[in-house]
């Protein structure tokens, strides 16, 4: 099985101050000026706070089965939601991925909250959520380019905890990856540590599709990714969440 690992610098990530503001719920051109200032402060120091690592492991068709809306990878039965199953049923192989920003952003966010600066802490936290997805966008693009060399396409990425896929299935995702892959561990309650990490699956095949907008498939109402996708600045958001 192929395993690819990546490290990125903060400057490699493609997102702007506006995407952080949109994730908080603001529409373009109506962002609180105090919040804009706080976001700019975070972006000025972000490089020193991000230790971006990620990668994926590809499982080929010989270890894949799709039965009764379950995706079985090496005898791990992933009970994905029917919404997700529909998107991956034509896949020929699956990339199981993981990406992390490291712990510094979360540590800084908590430090600020505990010091009586909840707004700054919240801005750091939101930045972390957006930045890790931007990092995963880069990894997904690498996968797309490599797959295209063999005439293959990729699907959107899907993670436990979204689109109806129960978060407890993180254990199965982690069991398919090397131990402490990219320095990420899972707690008993299926929280990833560092917190600003993402994991999941991406389908690969000749007859799969990538959808530009999948948030309308999911019934989570208060989701920052839905906020971002529904904002008037959706050009800046291209993860397919």
């Amino acid at each position, binding site marked *: 099985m192929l395993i690819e690992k990546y490290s990125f610098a903060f400057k490699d990530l493609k997102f702007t101050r506006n995407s952080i503001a949109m994730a908080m719920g603001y529409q373009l051109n109506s962002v609180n000026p*105090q919040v804009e200032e706080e976001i700019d402060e975070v972006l000025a120091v972000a490089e020193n706070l991000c230790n971006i690592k990620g990668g994926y492991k590809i499982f080929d068709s010989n270890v894949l089965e799709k039965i009764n809306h379950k995706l079985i990878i090496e005898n791990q039965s992933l009970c994905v939601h029917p919404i997700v199953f529909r998107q991956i049923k034509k896949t020929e192989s699956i990339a199981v991925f993981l990406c992390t920003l490291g712990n510094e952003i979360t540590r800084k966010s908590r430090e600020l909250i505990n010091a009586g600066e909840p707004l700054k802490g919240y801005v750091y936290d939101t930045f972390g959520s957006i930045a890790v997805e931007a990092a995963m966008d880069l990894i997904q693009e690498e996968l797309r380019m490599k797959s295209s060399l063999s005439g293959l396409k990729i699907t959107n990425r899907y993670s436990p905890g979204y689109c109806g896929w129960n978060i407890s299935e993180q254990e199965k995702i982690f069991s398919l990856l090397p131990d402490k892959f990219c320095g990420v561990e899972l707690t008993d*309650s299926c929280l990833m540590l560092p917190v600003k990490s993402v994991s999941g699956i991406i389908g690969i095949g000749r007859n799969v599709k990538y959808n530009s907008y999948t948030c309308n498939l999911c019934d989570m109402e208060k989701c920052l990714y839905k906020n971002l996708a529904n904002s008037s600045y959706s050009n800046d958001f291209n993860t397919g969440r």
Partner: protein
Amino acid sequence: MSDILERLLHSVESGKINRLSPFPPSLKGQDGADELCKQALDEGIKPDIILNEALIPGMSNIGEKYSQGRAFVPEMLISAKAMTAAMKHLKPFFISGEIKRKGVFVIGTVAGDLHEIGKNIVSMTIEGSGWEVVDLGVDVKADKFLETIEKYPGSVVGMSALLTTTMASMESIVKEIKNKYPGKVIMVGGAPLSHEFCNSIGADFYSPDPRGAVEFLKKLGA
């Protein structure tokens, strides 16, 4: 309402913390909640009037905007900071008993869960409505909730969970509390929760937003 109380209400609602704060731009260079609260006391306005006619309504207004999607988490946090700046002038009156808190609210994110931003907003909003808040933080186990309830017997308890995995933790904590304190009022919240879940685990109230939590506490006190 007197001019100073109106200005104080507006300072809390708009997040004008003090004179030095440059935000909001429309109030730059003017006194903020810190200075205005002190001025109101110096003018002889009673502390409970300041709390009930300026500070609490200011937080209530921003809470309503948040519930309606016209304000977001940052506005809530900024207003809460303005409220805190004003409240430090009222602290001696709470200590002396001249202003009475409406009650004690014990809150924590349940064991296994580290999310805290939503919990913090609820804490600030409830404190801004006149309650004493005892915030236990995150990853709070049942015995910590029980120990705190013993210390504050008349308290209302709030719990937050943001993972479906920690909702199970919430259920067992609610059961332990209700076993030991059957009459204890427990409020729950968090993105994956619902009224149905609240009822199924024996909790007393669920609110999707801080304003609902405040309204529930108001009805309890009535």
